[in-house]
């Protein structure tokens, strides 16, 4: 099975009932599969006129009560930034898959890249929280798709699934769980009568219950700053609490959201921090280094955003060097440097459409 196929199965297992997208390599298999599978279970698929419309349709469908997803690659991801901001502002759950390809611009459609890491964080204008996950294997593509939907519904936020072409088009054996055994999170519905409902009101979890359109709760949704009732506002005593709450709803759940895998990091003087397809090279490099009796650890970041600050800070206390291989010219390395200090970080970069090789990482481990 291929990474893209695992994403489609993961979406179905998570309860996705709506997909809108626009064809783009190397993500198209996701759309093709869901156009076939969704109607079998009464779900809806639509091919929109562009990526801007695709994410708009997903948000519209999500407001109508369906779990919704779109998938794209760099050029389309650039177009989607407008509505990632809208989804963050209106707190409408949706999942955006970005299968990164070499850029900028049209770049190279079938060449892998990790060049959209910072775009996933800051691509849309204005301050907003975001969640981005990055799988390293086909099975993990399935699992993290389910997690992406669950985070999206639990926290009422857009979630970005950041793949690279390596994982998306890689074929490997993957035993998927039975769909019924997969944990599904549903959005918190409101229990108050319609006249009391505040779509953006205070709640203990900082995630207000969400009423779907058509359920008898008439309210207003807007991309403008809004008060608890959803109406536009310019009042500082309504804007400030909104800004604080939407950031707090992610920050206070950071231990749920930030997922990392650690291998031998406890006493290692050298630690490799990697994510996505680059983890495959990093694992091999670490294995070769250990065979040469070099004490080296590996941190795999499954959650890219919010950044795993605590984990990196802990590792930086004992490790002398942190090696960050990326298929870009150093994007997440900036975050590692921010936490660990520039003097400790060794970047291993490649932005030409080829993978970072195990040898490149091994050379860095050995200080060559």
């Amino acid at each position, binding site marked *: 099975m291929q990474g893209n196929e695992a994403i489609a199965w993961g979406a179905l297992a998570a309860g996705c009932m*709506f997909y809108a997208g626009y064809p783009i390599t190397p993500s198209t298999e996701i759309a093709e599969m869901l156009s076939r599978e969704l109607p079998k279970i009464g779900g809806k698929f639509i091919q929109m006129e562009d990526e801007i419309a695709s994410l708009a349709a997903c948000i519209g469908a999500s407001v109508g009560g369906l779990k919704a997803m779109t998938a794209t690659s760099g050029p389309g991801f650039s177009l989607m930034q407008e509505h990632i901001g809208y989804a963050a502002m209106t707190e409408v759950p949706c999942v955006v898959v970005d299968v990164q390809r070499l850029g900028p611009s049209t770049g190279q459609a079938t060449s892998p890249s990790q060049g959209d890491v910072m775009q996933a964080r800051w691509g849309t204008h204005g301050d907003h929280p975001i969640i981005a996950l990055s799988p390293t294997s086909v099975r993990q593509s399935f699992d993290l798709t389910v997690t992406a939907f669950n985070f999206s519904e639990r926290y009422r936020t857009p979630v970005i699934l950041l793949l690279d072409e390596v994982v998306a088009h890689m074929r490997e054996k993957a035993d998927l769980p039975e769909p019924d055994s997969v944990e599904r999170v549903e959005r918190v519905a409101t229990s108050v009568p319609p006249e009391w409902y505040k779509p953006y009101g205070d709640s203990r979890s900082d995630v207000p219950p969400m009423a*779907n359109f058509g359920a008898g709760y008439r309210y207003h949704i807007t991309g403008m700053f809004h008060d608890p009732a959803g*109406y536009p506002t310019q009042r500082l005593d309504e804007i400030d609490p909104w800004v604080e709450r939407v950031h707090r709803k992610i920050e206070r759940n950071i231990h749920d959201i930030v997922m990392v895998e650690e291998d031998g990091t406890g006493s290692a003087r050298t630690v490799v921090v990697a994510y996505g397809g680059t983890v495959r090279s990093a694992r091999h490099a670490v294995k070769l280094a250990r065979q040469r009796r070099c004490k080296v650890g590996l941190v795999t970041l499954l959650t890219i955003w919010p950044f795993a600050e605590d984990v990196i800070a802990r590792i930086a206390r004992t490790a002398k060097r942190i090696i960050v291989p990326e298929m870009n010219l150093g994007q997440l390395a900036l975050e590692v440097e921010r936490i660990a200090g520039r003097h400790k970080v060794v970047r291993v970069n490649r932005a030409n459409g080829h993978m970072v090789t195990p040898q490149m990482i091994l050379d860095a481990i050995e200080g060559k």
Partner: protein
Amino acid sequence: MSREEHSAYSYLRQTKKFPNVWCSGCGIGIVMGALIRAVDRLELEKNEVAVVSGIGCAGRMSVYLDFNTMHTTHGRALAFATGLKIAQPKLKVIVVMGDGDALAIGGNHFIHAARRNIDLTAIVVNNEIYGMTGGQYSPTTPLNSRATTAPYGNIEQPLPTCDLAIAAGASYVARSTVYHSVELDRYIEQAIRKNGFSLVEAVSYCHTTFGRINKLGSAVDMMRQLKDNSVSRSAAEKLAPEERASKIVRGVLCDLDKPEYTALYQQVIERAKTAPDSQRRVGGGRQ
């Protein structure tokens, strides 16, 4: 009749602080009134109606209406509405946009929503200018008119909104003006009732920007110009082509019955469910 009993008031949000954002004398309020009267005449439940709007003066309409309302992004209202309609086919989804919103930044979505013939009611309030940003020329600004970004006169041809919708495949297309509000009520009512993509072009004016720059007088003067410059479709047919070209032609310009998108998608679901491999489950995927 008390204020509360009057149908228009009962459809306005009591919790939203009025006055509205529109300049006094603006025609958009008349379109809002027409929308309310159409919904009232159709006896639709408020919960069954969704109003999705874009960005601009006309886009602000949704916030005042006591329906399911969504104020979206500039130009994209029809794309949001498409997703909402597919998710909730029972909702009557009305999409309110301005001319710049629907036809410039949203031109592509406009064409494709009409092409799909999805059951949405699009209302384009055409005031021939970008009002909210202060009077820049729009896709419907007449040739040679002035705008803040066309200080020497507009050299771009105006877009024929209704012709575009008809060519793209809309089921119902009608045009009227904010002067002819009774007619506007009726067209919006027919458009909502139509099962398919429908468009009502509500020709309005902007006395604050367009009127001032082009020395067209007050709101009342511009309202009078709508009256004097418009003709019914039947009257227009009797005019010479060059004379007709300078008139606003009012009327139902297209009214067809053809397959609607969400109904067709329901057929796709039936086909998929009876397809030979329809029972395949997630765990049984190609390994």
